[in-house]
């Protein structure tokens, strides 16, 4: 019962905006909010495990988000120029383009993630200040590299025709891209839960999140697991970046940094190291941001901060965080 309490309270609060708007607007905003939440979740899920498992503050996570977006963007542009897969009315061609873009984003960000962890993060284990400095430094380098490779300006992301436009469901306009984002987010969440709860690697990672020293004196090489978690987290950030590029139909070099702040807030709201906490936190942030942006546009950024403050006042360890 106690575990469900935060969820029930959250649901009740999320119905509140209905008082101020009609149902159709509410549903449109809800879909948009859930989609935004899912994209933030992709970024936050990696961040929470990286921080939970090794106590590493990774500010380069946002740069991986941008790199995933640009890598996927390049793949999509290439396929569109060559064979016109994005504009093509064929669902198969559209799907292949999307899959290829995701695959390229994953490969590139996993590679970058492993390099970052081995070269930059490993020497500064246990030293938060150095972690912040060096990962911020890496962010600057990675962002500048994007400017060198792809140029400094915004570019238009080719979006597959199948997921452009909207469906009309009982007079409610449902945009397709957000639905795809929601589906992808749920699939990632289900996959992570299965991996964490049903495999031995997941068991060791969960134990390591709670007590990293104990897992080492039991004979598990936590560094090896951590490299894997870092790579997986990087891949999630990359996929999140790509989905964000499709969602906003554009890519730009600073896109990752903007999302990172949301992701950190979500990690804190959800509780460090908790994937479920990240999902709930991300959805809360996405939904409340969209409701408030419609009702009181100027307060939209503030509401995420307010949400964090309220959660921390009620539960200092976050919604699902275990006290360490």
């Amino acid at each position, binding site marked *: 019962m106690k575990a469900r309490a935060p969820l029930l309270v959250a649901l009740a609060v999320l119905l509140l905006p209905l008082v101020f708007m009609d149902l159709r607007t509410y549903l449109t905003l809800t879909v948009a909010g859930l989609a935004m939440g899912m994209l933030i979740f992709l970024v936050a899920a990696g961040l929470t495990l990286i921080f939970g498992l090794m106590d590493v503050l990774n500010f380069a996570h946002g740069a991986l988000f941008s790199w995933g977006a640009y890598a996927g963007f390049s793949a999509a542009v290439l396929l569109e120029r060559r064979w016109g897969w994005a504009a093509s009315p064929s669902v198969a061609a559209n799907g292949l383009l999307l899959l290829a873009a995701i695959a390229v984003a994953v490969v590139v960000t996993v590679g970058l993630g492993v390099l970052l962890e081995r070269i930059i993060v490993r020497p500064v284990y246990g030293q938060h200040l150095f972690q912040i400095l060096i990962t911020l430094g890496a962010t600057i380098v990675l962002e500048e590299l994007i400017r060198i490779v792809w140029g400094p300006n915004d570019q238009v992301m080719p979006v597959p025709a199948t997921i452009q436009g909207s469906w009309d469901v009982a007079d409610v306009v449902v945009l397709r891209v957000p639905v795809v984002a929601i589906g992808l987010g749920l699939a990632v969440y289900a996959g992570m839960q299965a991996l964490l709860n049903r495999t031995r690697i997941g068991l060791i990672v969960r134990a390591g999140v709670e007590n990293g*020293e104990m897992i*080492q*004196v039991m004979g598990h090489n936590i560094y090896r697991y951590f490299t894997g978690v870092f790579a997986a987290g990087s891949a999630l950030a990359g996929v999140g970046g790509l989905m964000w590029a499709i969602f906003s139909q554009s890519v730009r070099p600073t896109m990752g940094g903007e999302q990172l702040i949301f992701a950190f807030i979500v990690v804190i709201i959800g509780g460090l190291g908790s994937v479920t906490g990240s999902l709930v936190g991300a959805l809360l942030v996405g939904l409340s941001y969209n409701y408030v942006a419609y009702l009181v546009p100027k307060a939209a950024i503030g509401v995420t901060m307010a949400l964090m403050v309220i959660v921390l006042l009620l539960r200092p360890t976050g919604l699902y965080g*275990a006290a360490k």
Partner: protein
Amino acid sequence: MDTTILEVEDLHTHIGQHHILQGVSLRIRPDAVTVLLGRNGAGKTTTMRTIMGVLHPTRGAVRFDGRPIHHLPPYEIARLGIGYVPEGQGIFGTLTVDENLRVAALAEDAASGRRLKQILDLFPDLDRFRHARAATLSGGQKQMLSIARAFVNPNRLLLIDEPSKGLAPIIVLHLVDALRAMKQHATVLLVEQNFAMASALADDFYLIDDGRTVRHGSMASLAADHELKKKYLGI
């Protein structure tokens, strides 16, 4: 040379600026229980943590079966066959009892299954609460789980840090029985403040004071030496 499973030679360990161990030397006989005694802050836990590789010594050596291990990371030391039951138990509270035991088992084979059954016979409570989250266990049950985790693997040496801390006397009696059963299977290095428990279990003792080993000998000789007990243990 007499047989020694673990040898600690003139160990010095710093924690931050503090010079905690200033010359700890131990020779642990195989198949015996050796207890480390000394006041709070004498360096008993630091000795254990240095042996386990969690802390790195600034001087001195640790040898297991004659092989130096003090430069190895903790996970390699553990895989040599050294089990560690830390002070405060180190239980994974968000995991179930069963998951705690499974994460500890380095090989899930027939032998570890047999050892698991043995340990669950010793601690029937663990079997009963097998699917409960470990955070919901009582202090005594958590201690049993922590010891059980170290016993799941075919460890030849168990380092057990203050198992009786914070437990009710009746639970301590049960622990003494369980540890007695375990000494059939492994060499034990024990830190224990409870002198009654220490003398019930230990064959040998080492006395640590201000980060140095000052005395050692057989437990029987210490029990008779009131002067020594008074000077270093205040009893």
